[in-house]
């Protein structure tokens, strides 16, 4: 990589200017995807723009009853934040399934999202939570839902000069709970064959009033399955509702066939994992209702 420059700007404006000046420049979060790809010769950016020196870019912030996570915050720091872990355990657990402790001490959720791998573990959990990205760019800041960032494997909707500054969560609804589960051949250091993120809200009677269900690794990008959520809303999460939800999940799954899992296995597992994740999310919702 002879011709790659390294910059560590101190402000968002400087980072935007550096990224805008060179369309091949890449933001650097934890580098656990970017540096691997550069070493493998798959990517040779003109410049690497390290986001970690920008003020406010690392850490979990709270605005009222809503959380915002700086784009350069490593996954292990999420786990260390008790309030975030209590409010969004599914998201924190998903981020802490990534790699090893060494990897999680560097890896960020923004990098997980912007690497645009269909199997990225934190992404279905973020989508289920209804999180949005704050994006900085040459024409100022904009907010987009997490699911609008990846467009195909390895590609995002970010324009030249743009990068994710922060991931914002909606206020945690009363009676809300979330969960993320993945299926992998081994428990650590493996890539999801299927991932399912769920966020639901239960009222005082145990009736589901809102739900979001998102799948990873069963299509070119994360899939938000509205039919699956609709199958739960209005129910008490009885067997019929859960079966209808699983069916909607299977119908929305369009996975690839490879040595790690066949199409039929991935589809079936998507239904199973979504069901298990709903039940975990429900127990969390109940615990706080």
């Amino acid at each position: 990589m002879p011709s790659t420059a390294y910059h560590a700007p101190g402000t968002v404006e400087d980072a935007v200017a550096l990224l805008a000046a060179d369309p091949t420049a890449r933001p650097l979060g934890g580098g656990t995807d970017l540096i691997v790809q550069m070493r493998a010769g798959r990517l040779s950016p003109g410049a690497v723009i390290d986001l970690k020196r920008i003020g406010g870019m690392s850490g979990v912030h709270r605005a009222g009853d809503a959380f915002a996570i700086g784009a350069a915050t490593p996954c292990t720091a999420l786990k260390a934040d008790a309030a975030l872990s209590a409010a969004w355990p599914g998201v924190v657990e998903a981020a802490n399934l990534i790699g090893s402790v060494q990897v999680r001490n560097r890896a960020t959720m923004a990098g997980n999202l912007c690497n645009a791998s269909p199997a990225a573990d934190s992404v279905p959990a973020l989508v289920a939570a209804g999180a949005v990205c704050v994006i900085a760019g040459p024409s100022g800041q904009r907010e987009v839902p997490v699911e609008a960032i990846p467009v195909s494997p390895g590609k995002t909707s970010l324009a030249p000069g743009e990068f994710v500054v922060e991931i914002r969560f909606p206020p945690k609804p009363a009676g809300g709970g979330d969960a993320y589960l993945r299926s992998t051949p081994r428990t650590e250091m493996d890539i999801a064959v299927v991932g399912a993120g769920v966020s639901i809200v239960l009222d005082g009677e145990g009736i589901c009033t809102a739900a979001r269900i998102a799948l990873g690794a069963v299509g070119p990008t994360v899939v938000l399955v509205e039919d699956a959520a609709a199958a739960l809303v209005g129910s008490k999460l009885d067997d019929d509702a859960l079966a209808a939800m699983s069916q909607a999940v299977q119908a929305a799954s369009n996975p690839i066939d490879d040595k790690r899992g066949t199409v039929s296995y991935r589809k079936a597992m998507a239904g199973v994992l979504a069901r298990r994740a709903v039940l975990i999310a429900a127990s969390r919702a109940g615990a706080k209702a």
Partner: protein
Amino acid sequence: MSKIRVSTTVNGDAAEFLCEPTSSLLDVLRDTMGLTGSKEGCGSGDCGACTVVLDGEMVCSCLVLAPEAEGRTIATIEGVAEGSVLHPVQQKFLEHAALQCGFCTPGFIVAAKALLDRNPDPTESEVRYWLAGNLCRCTGYDKIVRAVMAAAAELRQERTPA
């Protein structure tokens, strides 16, 4: 591309080096600073042989760009023993024969010490999960886990005032 000057602290001492913008921290430690204890097993974050502690957190130094170390504090395997006195983790690795070829050992010791520094009483399963990012092709892991558990027990004794 001109080289970048980086000032850091390595094992408690101020250290300066010149590096290419995309050199890895591992390459600088080994080739520029002569600290060859950290090993390169894979260069892709999978094996943990290059594990160092950066600002208090263990990371794969093969996946850190050397210029990122500006102003940061780095601890490597070379700083684990105090002079000729081995750290309990090192001593227990010897006693329990937790190494064969030894290539993975520096990474395991740095990682195990990082665990025991924050949790001197881990369960076996906590040890195994913590070390999941360190690969060993020789020992079958069991002796490593036993050595770490034994080191934890010794550290707890040392820390308990008589």
